[in-house]
């Protein structure tokens, strides 16, 4: 059991690291890969967080997560990236350095928040919920502070991952159908956003979201 908890903790640490990398790196390709790693970690976490009974649907689920978040999404995104000849995130509203400096503080706040809540966490470590919050915050932060449409999609994905970690941490049995539905939605979302980015690129021949500000008032 201890071993389990340690394993969980390691995965959690890795999650935090991925988040930090996302905040720090400006190369879109890197970001995509990092998000892929995050997906894979989630797949692992799904199994680890399940105390004891290793149900068949659980295996199925983690497999689904693994494929979707770890393989298909990155694939889709990389392909989109290829279409729009852009490699780097332009200068964001909040610099990379600043975000990296800020992130530990945010993490502290998240840990404190997690301690506030009386969540029915199973065997999982007390770090899970805070990291979930942290991931969510990072996702929102990416969407708010970055300018490239693609980065915002990544931000959305990170947000979802965070929520997913939270979902996995609280020991409720979501029926597999719902889980699959949710995954499907995430998939469709990424797909749609990909197409949307493609359209944007075609119409505007750039994908800087902050330059999409014709509609106002």
């Amino acid at each position, binding site marked *: 059991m201890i071993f389990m908890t340690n394993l969980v903790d390691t995965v959690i640490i890795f999650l935090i690291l991925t988040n930090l990398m996302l905040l720090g790196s400006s190369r879109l390709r890197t970001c995509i890969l990092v998000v892929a790693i995050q997906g894979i970690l989630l797949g692992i976490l799904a199994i680890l967080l399940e105390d004891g009974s290793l149900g068949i649907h659980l295996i199925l689920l983690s497999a689904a997560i693994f494929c979707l978040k770890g393989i298909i999404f990155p694939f889709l995104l990389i392909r989109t990236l290829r279409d729009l000849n852009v490699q780097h995130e332009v200068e964001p509203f909040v610099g990379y350095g600043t975000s990296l400096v800020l992130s530990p503080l945010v993490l502290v706040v998240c840990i404190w928040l997690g301690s506030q809540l009386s969540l029915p966490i199973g065997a999982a470590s007390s770090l899970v919920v805070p990291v979930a919050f942290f991931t969510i915050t990072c996702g929102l932060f990416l969407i708010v502070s970055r300018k490239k449409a693609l980065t*915002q999609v990544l931000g959305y994905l990170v947000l979802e991952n965070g929520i997913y970690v939270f979902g996995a941490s609280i020991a409720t049995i979501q029926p597999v159908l719902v889980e699959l539905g949710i995954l499907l939605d995430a998939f469709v979302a990424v797909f749609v956003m990909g197409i949307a980015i493609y359209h944007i690129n075609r119409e505007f021949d750039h994908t800087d979201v902050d330059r*999409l500000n*014709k509609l106002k008032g």
Partner: protein
Amino acid sequence: MNPGILLWIILLLPVVGSGICQILRSPKNVMNFTCFGVAVIGILDIVTAGVVFSSNTISSCSEWLYMDALSAYHLIVMALVFCMSSLYGMRYFDKEINEGIFTLKSAKRYGILWFASLAAMTLILVSNNLGMMWVGMETTTLVTAFLICTRANKASIEGMWKYLIVCSVGIALAFMGTLFIAAATYKFQGSISGNGVLWTQLKMHAGLLDAKLAQIGFLFIFVGYGTKAGLAPMHTWLPDAHSQAPSPVSAVFSGFMLNAALYCIMRYTSLIKLVPGNENLSRDLFLFFGTLSIVVAAAFILSQHDLKRLLAYHSVEHLGIIAIGLGMGPLGIFAALFHTLNHSICKSLGFFCAGRLGQIYGSYDMRGMTGALRLSPLWGGGLLGSLLALIGIAPFALFMSELLIVKAAIATNSIWVLVVFLAGSCIIFAAALKHVINVVYGTPPVLDFKPRRSSIPDTGIVVFSLGVLLVLGLWMPNSLHEILYRAANIMEGIDAATTVCVK
């Protein structure tokens, strides 16, 4: 036969419909088929609702699909809005079709997405599992996104992108909230038959929910679904999406999608009211966001030049009014539900007229639109009627529902809300009236466009909607009263046995 089947039928028929759109061979056929199919489904919806009202609730496959008065009422609203919009949409694209802009491909895409969004919204209404409800809502967002840019141009794509991102983020937060609620159930995990969070069961054990978690969960839910419902300050996507979408889509957006989101919040409200220590939580939130929405809407209606954006901000205002009503006890909820119906009909009509007038004038800039009544008596008159109704002129039904809300406000003596509401509505009245007078009256500009004779369906839509609004303003059928009353009770979290006096 088991009435539960009906739920399956109304859920799956739209999917079939979207399948059929795939195999049609001409844009005209696609449009006609959407109209026909939606009509059939709409009738089935209403039949289902009727069954629900006769027998208190119906459910299927171990209560995964479930429908009670509240959802049935919204089902009727949805059926109405979709039928009207489809009927209108049948003729809306004629010009593009003839010019060949609106190709078979885009027609197919339109039809498929149209049916798909119908299916998604139905899923929201019929699913008892809060997770599935969330899935339905997210699907709605994704499906409707491309309806916005049926005609792909810079503005519409921008609108779509904003809609997509803002709503997705919001709904993700709503999912977070759902998880919190799920987490709050740990006290009675054992007692619920182990398949997820069914609203009915939560309702049963609501007293046992963990107060803190439920509270946080509700906050997330409110912000999340509130984003989709277009409550200020999360409404930012709304004017962009509404103004860029083709009119039938805008009508569905404003006419039902917003209400669907609000419906989700209602479901949770009926739970949170029963959680010890959180009785007033929902009230505070509703009143706060309601008043805020009205003020913001007033600010933007005052200086608006785009007709469709004007209507969009009116949606913000009216959703705010509905929210205020929901925050004001049984009578208020009754009024709010009534207002939902009125607003849906009226706003759809508004968008219909705006769309056609936009086609006539070639733009939605109200500074260039004058003398609509002379150019096209039907659509000009319709716009005048719908806007007069929107700003609360008696004897239209919206006046009645707003009157009830004021009554509720006085009854629960929430004075400040009342003051803000009345002041805001007066400002909006003045501003919107100015706009509509300048659009409808006066001498029209010289246009090469020859307004074509308005066809039977067009006339039908206008006359029907205005007629319904008029009749409901002057005479409320007892059946409708009963329905609203039962729905209000569900929302209020009390079973129909304990009576609430709204007479």
